[in-house]
């Protein structure tokens, strides 16, 4: 436990010392917020589930923070560790694999929380976004979402051999999910095929899970169960497929 916390603390410091990752994780969703916030008039409309566009998009962009950590941050981090021989060094020590994974999950939670709070505060100030209908349920939705994407990130990091591969594939997945999962055009406006494709993406369920209680709908059990399934499958696959070298 002491080692897990120490590892988490060190990884957190390493994250803060890496400016590019910081900007990507924290600033990119803010840029989307301002671009789309500048496009739409912030009045309630049917395609945004009868909500104001910015109330609709804010939880979706919190989803983007989570997805960028899981699809780009973590895979690149692990691939770099593997490529450079850091994993080799860790492997020869008494450090457990679960401790290496666990530290990444905790770091993801902390960073996603900070990024999420930053985004929500900015959208409240800049776009007059209102406090979620159910703050407790939004938080309850946020945690499993981060954990699911941390698991996906660790799985990608376990599979992708090089930093380049991780960067390339991670960015493609991120952009595709970003466009089709409800953080780009609203699914309500998409063609059938696009909407169906979007529903294959884990980010779709993350956004729904957080957006529903945010806009005053009931807890989305379907989305929750799907994310729980993704977490279990990705974790088991990572433990099986993880390569140290």
């Amino acid at each position, binding site marked *: 436990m*002491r*080692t897990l916390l*120490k*590892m988490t603390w*060190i990884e957190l*410091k*390493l994250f803060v*010392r*890496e400016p590019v990752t910081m900007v990507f994780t924290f600033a990119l969703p803010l840029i989307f917020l301002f671009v789309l916030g500048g496009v739409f008039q912030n009045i309630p409309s049917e395609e945004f589930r009868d909500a104001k566009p910015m109330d609709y998009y804010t939880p979706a962009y919190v989803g983007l923070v989570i997805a960028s950590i899981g699809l780009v941050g973590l895979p690149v981090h692990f691939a770099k*560790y593997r490529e*450079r*021989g*850091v994993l*080799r*060094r860790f*492997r*020869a*020590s*008494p*450090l*457990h694999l679960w401790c290496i994974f666990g530290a990444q999950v905790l770091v993801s939670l902390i960073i996603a929380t900070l990024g999420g709070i930053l985004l929500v505060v900015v959208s409240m100030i800049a776009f007059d976004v209102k406090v979620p209908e159910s703050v407790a349920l939004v938080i309850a939705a946020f945690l499993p979402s981060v954990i699911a994407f941390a698991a996906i990130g660790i799985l990608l990091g376990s599979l992708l051999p090089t930093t380049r591969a991780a960067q390339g594939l991670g960015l493609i997945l991120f952009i595709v999910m970003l466009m089709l999962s409800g953080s780009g055009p609203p699914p309500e406006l998409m063609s059938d095929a696009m909407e169906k494709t979007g529903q294959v993406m884990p980010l779709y369920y993350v956004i729904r899970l957080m957006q529903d209680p945010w806009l005053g709908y009931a807890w989305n059990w379907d989305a929750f169960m799907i994310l729980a399934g993704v977490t279990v499958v990705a974790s088991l696959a990572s433990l099986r497929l993880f390569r140290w070298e």
Partner: protein
Amino acid sequence: MKKIIEVEHLRKVYGSTVAVNDISFEVADGEIFGLLGPNGAGKTTTVECLQGLRRPDAGRLRVLGLDPQSDSRELRRQIGSQLQDSALPDRMRVWEALDLFSSLMPNSPDWRTTMEQWGLTEKRKSSFSRLSGGQRQRLFVALALANNPKVVFLDEMTSGLDPAARHTAWDLIRAIRDRGTTVVMVTHFMDEAERLCDRLGIVDCGRLTAVDTPQGLITTYAGQVRVVFSTEHADLSWLQGVPNVSRVSRHGPRVEVEGTGPVLARVAAALVERGILPTDLRQEQPSLEDVFLSITGHTIQD
């Protein structure tokens, strides 16, 4: 003597290359055991199998009574490793690495002491990417010792170190041994093997060709002693008849006599008897270099 490591018929193949071909040896408690050989001889593969980092294709391995494959978790708690081609995260600081690695085991020695011993205190706040090759090397050895291991594996520990740092490193390794830690080291430096190792295995082309103390190897394999002196005396053919002498050669005033056993004393006595008193009479010690050449038929650089 208690055996800490047992290796029986170890074999490891990469594709069509046989990296390790039927190697067997034992390491006793509290000794510095070295594997000496050229690059690509199979030394690193052997110690990586011992550390559970590679799965052997055949053979039986025991380290501290544990199987490196099936008991790898317990094994890693009790050994320390300094690996080739490994790294730390670029922006991790020296003290953070030492702090982390020493926190992995209860009753680890204070990492500040280790940091001081390995001359890293000045660099404690430097990030890994800013360390020189030698500093990284010293940090890795310090990390290998951070969990107070019973056996420590050092793979080319002094490569990248300057001569002064190498001598300091040797002293520290001896100190580790004297504290009771068994040391297994891989090296291609003859002087390091000769000066540091209590026992030594010579590895060439995946095979272990000889195991003994450095002096034992020299006595066995470099049996010929060379005595050298200078003289203006024209006729030295009588030297052939001196007991223990096997060969005499001459280049101008310089005379080389090869032989076995107490050849120096015999030659000296014979010279004095004939009134020849060279001022530079001496014996040239055969070295591990000669041993290596006589066992493998090539030098270590080939």
